[in-house]
């Protein structure tokens, strides 16, 4: 857990970069396929990107959160 905490910011930075690359989905630019018969594939892909963003940010709260409430108390900030 400690090792993943120290590598956490790097993992999250890599995942965000990956999301930004996947966001530019040139491969579906002119594809008119309807997923499940009703969702255009470009919309489906980007809805999946939104869900992947949720997963990435959830992981960020577990392995790369910049502060803990204990630290804030210690600093007398709260």
């Amino acid at each position, binding site marked *: 857990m400690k090792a993943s905490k120290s590598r956490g910011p790097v993992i999250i930075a890599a995942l965000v970069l990956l999301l930004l690359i996947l966001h530019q989905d040139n491969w579906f630019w002119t*594809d008119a396929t309807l997923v499940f018969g009703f969702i255009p594939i470009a919309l489906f892909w980007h809805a999946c990107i939104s869900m992947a963003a*949720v997963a990435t940010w959830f992981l960020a709260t577990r392995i790369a959160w910049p502060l803990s409430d204990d630290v804030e108390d210690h600093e007398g900030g709260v």
Partner: protein
Amino acid sequence: MDHPGLPQLIIILVYLGLLLALGLFSSRLFKGTKEDYQVASHSIGPFLLLMSIFGTTMTAFALVGSSGEAFREGVGVYGMLASSSGIVHSLCFFLIGVKVWKLARRHKYTTQIEFFRDRLDSDFVGYLMFPILVGLVIPYLLIGVISGGAVIQSLTGGLAPDLPMFQVFDAEGDANPALHGGVPPWLGSMVICVVVLVYVFFGGMRGTTWANTFQTLVFMILGVVTFFVIANKLGGQESLLDNLKTLANSVPEDKVTRSEMSKTKFFTYLFIPLSVGMFPHLFQHWMTAKSSDAFKLPVVCHPFFIMIVWVPCVLVGIWATGLPADMHLPANPNTILPFLVKTQTGPILGGFLAAGILAAIMSSLDSQFLCIGTIFNNDVVTHLAGKDRFSDRQQVMFTRLFIIGIVAITYFLSLGNVRSVFALGVWCFSGFSALFPIVVAALYWRGLSAAGAISGVFAAITSWCILFYQGTKVPLEQGGLSKFVLELPLGGESYELMPVVAMMLSSTVTMILVSLVTPRPSEEKLEKFFG
């Protein structure tokens, strides 16, 4: 209740009444201090923070504009405006919100300007940022106030066609079928302003947060309900899935793909959502958090909430492109959703949708009004007169008076011929994005000097003005200001870029170069922020 426009009007009035009651109730918890009025005594937990931040960042555009843009541009608008925001907004909350919250709690800041003044050890940076931030928020406020009046008018059409002030005629002198008899925009906008003013005035940040939470729930639920009702009505099939398939198959191919959309413009739109990192009203919402852990829920759920609101609206927008010509769709794409609600559903849902759109509008307006009142008090009056000159009670009074003033100014500006203000939306966001490198550097780069930050701000604003001037030269037939893009010639091809790229580049380069050759703040000061 069968009278045209009456059910809608009643639902809108009940909704506004509920908001007033919520604002007045929250004022009973008011502790009488400036900190309580401006940042709810830093008492807001994860759920309320999520709802208030989401409600503040989503405007009427999320419901009305998204379906309108999808009608005009096709499905690509989701990737351009929604999934990009899901990634970038949470990134800003994570990288900037949490860090700035920690510093602000430690050093007692409420506004961005207080933070920049202290971090850069410069009074001038505060005086420079003050008019820029207020100037960029005002068009944003105007869009909300004007949209509110327009929505109430369009959804109460037919209410009082005999009252002269409710009548709307077109150029040929015929009654406008969509608007005639509806509540006039000046009256609708006034009511919106008064309701927001009352709950912000009495409830302060606590009232604003509660109202935002309520309003966010309202517009999310109503958006989804509207989607299912319209799908079932327009599809004309037995099951929901059959309706969805029928509607999707009727959409022209260019609207289910991005064949007409520039790839580089799509890519450079990614820079626009960075604007949330510099929104002064969002900064103030961050300050309300009870702890840094309260940010976790907003960071995680924000992209999901955007998806819930945007996917149904984009689908409705593209379905409208496949509807038969005899439905006489309105010429203005932004009225597609209200038109479909009015023609395909009953007056009750029409009234609820009006409430939902107003919810989206008001949940941004309230935070912006409160934020400008706070900036005036903290960064002008108190800063000039001295911190100990006024009591908390007096400062709450000043904040309230400034809020009244800014509501009045915004309302009177909205009465002018400012329809073109809608084109300013993306330009306001671009302006905030252009300032984004400065807040990042202030938080993460010890080498940032006051001169570097000031030069960066000047570069951002100068490039904004030059590009804006170029944008005004685009003929209205070609979309005017809102369609202005930069053309980058490369290898015999020309690539379209959003103007925000040039603005951010100029502010970043200037800020770095000037910082490298000018003295940075003292080591003691830097220790305060990086130690």
